């Protein structure tokens, strides 16, 4: 998916560890989103941003923090990882409010 790059692609953590997922976009989109995808549950919005310096809570924000210091980057942090946060995380961007148009390829995160 050209335009939205997520790093890392895979990661294994132990319970209680912290980490940051990075999303970078080169399309100059205002809106950026972090989703998690679990089997049979579609995508659930964790946090989103409507522009540089702004963040807002989504559907399932507990246990996560985000920052958007630069327009092109949206960071998702896990302060103290829990097994329930094992999931595939997707970043998305868009130029239209609340409509993610471009997704990254995901970060597969396992927490033991």
């Amino acid at each position, binding site marked *: 998916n050209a335009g939205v790059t997520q790093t890392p692609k895979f990661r294994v953590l132990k319970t209680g560890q912290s980490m940051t997922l990075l999303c970078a976009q080169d399309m100059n989109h205002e809106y950026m989103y972090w989703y998690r995808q679990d089997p*049979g549950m*579609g995508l659930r919005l964790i946090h*989103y941003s409507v522009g540089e310096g702004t963040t807002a809570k*989504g559907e399932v924000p507990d246990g996560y923090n985000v920052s958007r210091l630069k327009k092109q980057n949206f960071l998702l942090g896990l302060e103290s990882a829990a097994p329930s946060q094992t999931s595939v995380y997707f970043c998305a961007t868009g130029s239209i409010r*609340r409509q993610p148009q471009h997704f990254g390829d*995901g970060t597969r995160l396992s927490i033991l």
Partner: protein
Amino acid sequence: TQLLEQSPQFLSIQEGENLTVYCNSSSVFSSLQWYRQEPGEGPVLLVTVVTGGEVKKLKRLTFQFGDARKDSSLHITAAQTGDTGLYLCAGPNNAGNMLTFGGGTRLMVKP
């Protein structure tokens, strides 16, 4: 909470067959989006339907938004192996600040 239910959850068909998948809700949506997701990749936006009764075509894919804007369907004609993937529908919540996604229909088209 606005919920979107997709059916069937799984569908396995032979190449060349036709199929329809559904996205239903008890709530009215101002619009609905359809995405396709292939294994190991992020979802790709296929279409947005906005007007009740609207029909949009994308090659062999036909999308319809229900007259009451509570449901949508995706019909694929003469399915191909390249159509294999997870099909997701999504619509904006009441507050208008985020999308609610359905659980998806996983389609496998066998040669």
